[in-house]
């Protein structure tokens, strides 16, 4: 659906079901240079099982208007604005990669609004490989090719997409190339590289938090994810085998299963 946030049109997938303000809200925040489509194998379950879902296209990404936000802090404020714009007081947040930094900062800034955090392939800081950052800022498509290489685990390089007929690496690459690379990936990578508040924010988080990590993740390795999780009070960790940073596509079912268990426990649908 399309709606306005701060006067700019925003697109979000509602998971194939109509957006219903009576249902609890889960917001999905994509990673650098990507779009709402990375979440297609997680969002539809929740949309069909009693939740209202918004898988956002961040400003300047996918089908959303505006320009890309330049800092993780601005993105965190923007997520809070989204919650206001759709008329909610609270939401559960799910993030992938850069999206983890965004929702972590959002929960730090707006603790009363955020009910749970699910961090997929997250870390307290995501310093960028200088060459990758430079390629993205120069609008070089090689940045996307490198990201797709590093973001998929050894098995994911062969394919084997859970949805018959889809090829991971080309699909992800096409998403990242759908807008001008320097204006999406370039700005996002720089925002990640500049963000320094992750570990401080983590220490302040008091809401249920789940870290979903992948044992083949080269971009946000398990040890970095654990370092962050250890700082969050009561944080839970799930490690997914046989995949890399794009675990949400490479092992979509396993990721959905742990996410379901966590959200249904800590952000259940209230029965009348």
């Amino acid at each position: 659906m399309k709606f306005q946030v701060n006067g700019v049109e925003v697109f979000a997938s509602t998971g194939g079901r109509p957006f219903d303000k009576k249902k609890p809200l889960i917001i999905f925040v994509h990673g650098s240079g990507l779009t709402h489509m990375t979440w297609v194998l997680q969002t539809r379950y929740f949309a069909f099982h009693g939740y209202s879902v918004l898988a956002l296209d961040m400003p300047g990404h996918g089908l959303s208007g505006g320009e890309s936000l330049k800092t993780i802090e601005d993105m965190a404020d923007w997520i809070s604005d989204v919650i206001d714009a759709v008329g909610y007081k609270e939401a559960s947040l799910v993030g992938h990669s850069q999206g983890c930094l965004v929702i972590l900062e959002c929960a730090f800034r707006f603790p009363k609004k955020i009910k749970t955090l699910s961090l997929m392939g997250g870390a307290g800081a995501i310093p960028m490989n200088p060459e990758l950052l430079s390629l993205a800022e120069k609008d070089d498509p090689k940045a996307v090719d490198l990201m797709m290489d590093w973001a998929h685990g050894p098995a994911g390089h062969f394919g084997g997409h859970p949805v018959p007929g889809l090829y991971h690496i080309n699909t992800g690459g096409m998403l990242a190339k759908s807008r001008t690379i320097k204006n999406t990936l370039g700005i996002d990578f720089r925002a990640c590289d500049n963000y320094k508040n992750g570990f401080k924010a983590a220490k302040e988080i008091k809401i249920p938090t789940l870290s979903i990590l992948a044992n083949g993740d080269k971009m946000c390795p398990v040890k970095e994810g654990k370092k962050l999780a250890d700082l969050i009070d009561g944080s839970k960790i799930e490690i997914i085998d046989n995949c890399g940073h794009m675990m949400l596509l490479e092992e979509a079912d396993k990721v959905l299963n742990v996410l379901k268990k966590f959200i249904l426990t800590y952000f259940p649908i209230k029965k009348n």
Partner: protein
Amino acid sequence: MTDKKKKSTDPKTYKFDTLSLHAGYQPQKNAGSRQVPIYQTTSYLFDDVDHAAALFNLERGGHIYSRISNPTVAVLEERVAALEGGTAALATSSGMSAIFLTIMTLCEAGDHLVVSSQLYGGTVNLFRLTLPKFGVKCTFVKPRDTEGFKKAIQKNTKGIFGELVGNPGNEIMNMPEIAKIAHDAGVPLIIDATYQTPYLCKPIDHGADIVVHSLTKWMAGHGSSMAGILVEGGKFDWMQNDKFPTMTKPYEGYHGLSFAEEFGPTAFTMKARAEGMRDFGPCLSPQNAWNVLQGIETLSVRMQKHCSNAEKMVEYLLSHESVAWVSHPSVPDHPDHDLAKKLLPHGKGSMIAFGIKGGKEAGEAFINNVKLASHLANVGDTRTLVIHPASSTHSQMDEATLKFAGLSQDMIRLSVGIEDFDDIRNDFETGFRAARRPRLVSNQ
């Protein structure tokens, strides 16, 4: 920067030859089976009611019924998508069903297509006679008439379709230019690249939005199995205009799903499967999918040999006293020679059309007397194949349509195989000798 440092920023995603052997398959998820298993089954167990609902709601990936998808077929689909540089693919029972499914996913009654005039005869009939019965009309344009494609576009045009190298006359569409025309009009370019395979050309890299193949031909190579496929490029923006409401608006057949919003770069394939396969059902059998996979494993090796034999054959035919003319993009005076160098850098393909001196009678004698080359209605077999199109594949056409499609009565269509070239040449000598004295041979 040292070479070592340069290498550090090169993506290490697998390359063509590796993908042709491995893409789409993980042995560890299939009992460690090194070879792709043949899932000879119609249907798949649901874990519980929730799991069944999730599959029907497209909440999660998986298989329900082999008309819609099958694990063996899915490996083939993913492999071809990987090789073509596409986001997704859908395999079908034949190349013709891939084209039909593509058009039925794209168009509704009242729509229009701009179509290259030089196509396989069956495809011509589909566009000329069958699709109008579904309310889809077509305007045919000669493949070299790039400006003609632009002029033929109407308000209700939903796409441009053509064979990159036309069958059987070897005329080449200026794909990058025609892609631009299509995109300026807000419609996709659909390319049948059966003759090229992704080894010779990846149309998506040159602007095509959907690629279709008869996998029966070079992709499989062995001439044992019928199969087709459509591959999505993932770049086309279905939401840029209001031409494709069935892609962009809520679809009643799937809980109000908007394919374009939900699936973006794979929306077309998702719709073709969810709607087209469900409602028309031209599914590929798992056995045939497996057979095609065996062929794809050696695609690059075979294509190199096909092309080198074709080049030798062109040289032989050009200098032969019984040959009136030769059409192959490798010939310097072929009208599309320069375009072919750009679009087909790894080889110009193994389809040759040539005219035999003595016309139809000589052509018949030639075909009746070659022994190694097989006379049949197929192309892209590992074996050398010959046919006289005017009396076979394109025989449903009247004289005017034949001419418009670039065919002549003396034309022989040759699909060069990978036999030892000396043996093919010796066989052709026998055919040409017979063609020079047809009456005598036919009385023997």
